């Protein structure tokens, strides 16, 4: 076992803020050796001072991971699991520097107009101290209402009862190979508990937990929305996330109890060598509403299908998904709606754009279980293909075990029409401006669901993706 122990790295003093900084209190940098086995998993658990139940959960998950075959559908995964680092203890000097950040990502930050300090954080090379004060006051405000909002590692220590009740229950390690992997090596992620009747009227953002820990490659998020409560969680940022590691495999579990509402928004832009294999699932109970808004840009392969299981009558699930596949990228994205009770309803809107030889697939499931009478699902998936080298596929799975139901599926594939381009160009728009405008229009139904600042950033990201795509 190779354990690197480094001397603490000297921090720049930023006024008074440094005294709130707890990342600098770590005594060293730890990097697990490459590869995965019991020793590495135990080491992770020990470093986090975890209780026995969590260590056992991790080790059991490792066994499940090792026994499960790779998925034989979706994208082409060429990944050597022994060639990955599974744990990097996050500190300010975790071996990455700003110089290591790929130029394309730096350019994107630049064009998005993101301030220097923020860029460094988003790229994972710097902890951000500046927001610490904001974090503190927000925490206080939420805490008064009984809301818990912290990173999942902290939650294991501070809220063990809640954790044990829900952790790994919505997505058990047995669910799929990558859920098992995450269960074995997870680190970081958000934990949110919203008590009954509490409605949080501004979006909670991962921004606030970044002080606690750098974003893991195997983060684990758990959100519990109690009866009649409401929350909107925005994960990460629309700004690009990047990693030099090759694998990102997160698990997100959400529980929305009776009359509760939860909206989870994430827009991710990964470096082009990343496998992004994420399991996201929510359970919605009586008259509860779960909404996923999920945007995928970048990565080599993304396989991600946010799901809503409608467990009790009146539950609703809505999923808006968008994928943008460019050269060398395969976005295998979609959504799942599972009707487990009568009078449940769901809607999926999926949009994909393929350009420069990129490939996007919609893979969706609509399932109605026996007894879920009067349930309704409406699925609309549209694909836009920008050039003849690009590709789009649709794999809708529909499983219905009940008679009195209504399932609608519409799919359309369009190429950016020569006629549309000509029309806009005849009004003085350049070819690039015209295609960019057509693409913005195409994703408009998703954009208008986003909070203002995210909508603006999303539009800028799409514009950047479009640059140089024609002409």
């Amino acid at each position, binding site marked *: 076992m190779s354990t690197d122990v480094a001397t603490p790295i000297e921090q720049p003093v930023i006024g008074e803020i440094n005294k709130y900084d707890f990342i600098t209190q770590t005594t060293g940098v730890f990097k697990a050796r490459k590869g995965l086995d019991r020793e590495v998993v135990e080491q992770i658990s020990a470093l986090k001072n975890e209780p026995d139940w969590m260590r056992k959960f991790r080790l059991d998950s490792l066994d499940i991971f090792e026994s499960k075959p790779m998925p034989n559908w979706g994208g082409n995964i060429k990944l050597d699991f022994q060639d990955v680092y599974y744990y990097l203890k996050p500190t300010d000097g975790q071996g990455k520097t700003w110089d290591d950040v790929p130029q394309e990502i730096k350019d994107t930050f630049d064009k998005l107009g993101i301030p220097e300090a923020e860029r460094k954080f988003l790229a994972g090379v710097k902890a951000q101290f500046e927001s610490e004060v904001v974090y503190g006051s927000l925490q206080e405000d939420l805490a008064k209402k009984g809301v818990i909002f912290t990173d999942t590692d902290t939650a294991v220590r501070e809220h063990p009862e809640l954790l044990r009740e829900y952790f790994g229950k919505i997505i058990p390690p047995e669910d799929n190979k990558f859920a098992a992997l995450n269960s074995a090596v997870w680190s970081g992620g958000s934990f949110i508990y919203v008590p009954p009747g509490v409605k949080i009227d501004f979006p909670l953002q991962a921004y606030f937990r970044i002080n606690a820990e750098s974003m893991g490659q195997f983060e684990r998020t758990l959100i519990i929305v109690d009866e009649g409560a409401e929350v909107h969680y925005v994960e990460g940022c629309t700004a690009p996330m990047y990693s030099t590691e090759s694998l990102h495999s997160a698990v997100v579990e959400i529980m929305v109890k009776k009359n509760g509402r939860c909206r989870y928004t994430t827009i991710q832009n990964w470096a082009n060598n990343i496998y992004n294999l994420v399991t996201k699932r929510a359970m919605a109970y009586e008259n509860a509403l779960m909404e996923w808004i999920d945007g995928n840009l970048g990565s080599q392969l993304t396989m991600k299908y946010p799901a809503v299981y409608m467990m009790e009558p009146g539950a609703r699930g809505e999923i808006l998904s968008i994928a943008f596949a460019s050269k060398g990228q395969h976005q295998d994205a979609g959504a799942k709606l599972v009707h487990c009770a009568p009078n449940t309803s769901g809607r999926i809107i999926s949009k994909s754009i393929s350009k420069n030889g990129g490939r996007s697939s919609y893979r969706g499931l609509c399932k109605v279980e026996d007894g879920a009478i009067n349930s309704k699902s409406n699925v609309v998936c549209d694909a836009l293909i920008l050039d003849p080298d690009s590709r789009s596929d649709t794999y809708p799975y529909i499983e219905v075990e009940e008679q009195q139901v209504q399932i609608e599926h519409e799919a359309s594939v369009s190429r950016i029409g*020569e006629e549309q381009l000509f*029309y*806009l160009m005849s*009004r*003085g*728009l350049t070819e690039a*401006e015209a295609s960019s405008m*057509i693409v913005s*229009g195409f994703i408009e139904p998703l954009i208008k669901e986003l909070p203002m600042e995210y909508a603006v950033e999303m539009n800028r990201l799409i514009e950047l993706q479009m640059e140089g795509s024609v002409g």
Partner: protein
Amino acid sequence: MSETLKITDLHVAVEGKPILRGVNLTIQRGETHALMGPNGSGKSTLGNAIMGHPSYEVTGGSIEIDGADLLEMDASERARAGVFMAFQRPMSIPGVKMADFLRHAATNVRNPNRKEGEDLIPMREFRRELKDKMSQLRMDEEFARRYVNDGFSGGEMKRAEILQLAMLRPKFAILDETDSGLDVDAVKLASQSIAEIGGAEMGILIITHHDKLLENNTPNFTHVMMGGRIVETGGVELARELYTEGYDRIRAAYPEAAALDAELSEEQATA
């Protein structure tokens, strides 16, 4: 050579099939020309070729604007050089608001050397102008927030085209059957608007079957197209004659061109 759109011996093919066979036409700014002719004679082809539609292949001849070679330019550059076409069937662009589209278009056309990413016309200024133009055209303000031609009725589309004409203020405008799909009142409003917008500034080519559009836009010249050529040119009286009498006299006078037309119309009908 200034203030002139000059078409010389223009030959145009679509999917390898010749449609225009030597069109000559010169339009000065301030003039209104009517282009009439039976279906399939090549009228819309001429419009599309002037505007630079990529499916219309120019196989011979030239088009010049103020002495500059239009054929060297793509559609965007032609628009910025001062050419506009109101389409017979404009494309819908879902998700793109009329106002956003028009602000981009107006900025580029008014500032032909604008580089991508440079500022657009200031929002306040643009909104005021758009509101004025829309009220002149008796369009509801809501119209600016709708998606470009998406779910528009035939009449709404045509009015949207005229709104664009008004905002872009081109040197030369081609109106391709702008009157079709409009009721009598709407045609009247459209023709008045075109006259107001055009004034003495614009060179206008009106492609039409309808004399109503010509009432407020008295053509200085009327051209009859048949078999991919302009076979006769006259004044406003020629337009009136064609509208009331039809094309029998022309067909009889140009049997060769009429035969080509019949062939093309038949192909269109069976296609």
